[in-house]
């Protein structure tokens, strides 16, 4: 991920800023699918590799950066109630 080192003086300040990188699967202005796919991939990854598998966090980082909070909350509720439309 691209990053920018930040001259940080206080302890809790993040040492670098980073966000979801450009993904060639989603080259257009419409990034809806990038957000959705990252969300699905994260939960698929955790289902396959277990909850503590660190590389899955890449997908979480992506969907957290891109998806509006309201969307994620809605999808979380749908998953809890077993009515999420995507295949996880």
């Amino acid at each position, binding site marked *: 991920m*691209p990053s*920018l080192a930040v001259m940080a003086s206080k302890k809790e300040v*993040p040492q670098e800023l980073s966000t979801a990188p450009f993904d060639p699967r989603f080259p257009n202005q419409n990034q809806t699918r990038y957000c959705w796919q990252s969300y699905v991939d994260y939960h698929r990854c955790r289902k396959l590799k277990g909850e503590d598998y660190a590389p899955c966090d890449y997908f979480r980082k992506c969907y957290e950066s*891109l998806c*509006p909070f*309201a969307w994620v909350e809605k999808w979380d509720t749908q998953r809890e109630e077993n009515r999420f439309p995507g295949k996880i």
Partner: protein
Amino acid sequence: MTTWSCMNLQDSASPIMEQLIFFHDHTMMIITMILAMVLYFMASTIINELVDRYMLEGQTMELMWTIVPAVILLFITTPSLRLLYLMDEIHNPIMTIKTIGHQWYWSYEYSDFVNVEFDSYMTPYEGDNKSMFRLLETDNHVTLPMHSFIRIIVTAADVLHSWTIPSLGIKADATPGRLNQSSFMINRPGLLYGQCSEICGANHSFMPIVIESVSTENFIEWIKKLSE
């Protein structure tokens, strides 16, 4: 923002807007030359009293007035397309912000490091306050670090809106259920103003956008305070 007697584009605050202004001036020069030429042709045909009754065709002239406009158009399309693709490009964004249009305010989300969200409502105009602009100020500014590439995700919660900052050369439609991406780099500190640019209902004119461009250190301080 535009102040009194500002008849042209606003001063740019990003490299893309700089290029857009250059393109505007370039195209303006071409249209001025065409206008002058056409006016001259019209004037000379009206004033001219000589008539050639035997002139039925002018192949060379027709060829010229076909090829010359084509070449002129090429000189407009080439820089135009270059800019279009340049604006579409995402050059390794440092951070992503999300903006969501509501009836009638914008809300913003920062979620790359800490999760921060806030609403940005217009502050009512105080007539005697000389330091504020009418219908352009908001209670919460979108604070952003300058000199860094920022991706913005634009969407809406209810109806169509449009997120616009003229001095950054950005205008992106906010559509419910869809995430539109745009990006920019602010090259100077200051306050940048914009307004909703898609008719969205009764208070469409009263949901302005204010960006506060600061240094990266100040930005970190600001977001740290917000997340506490």
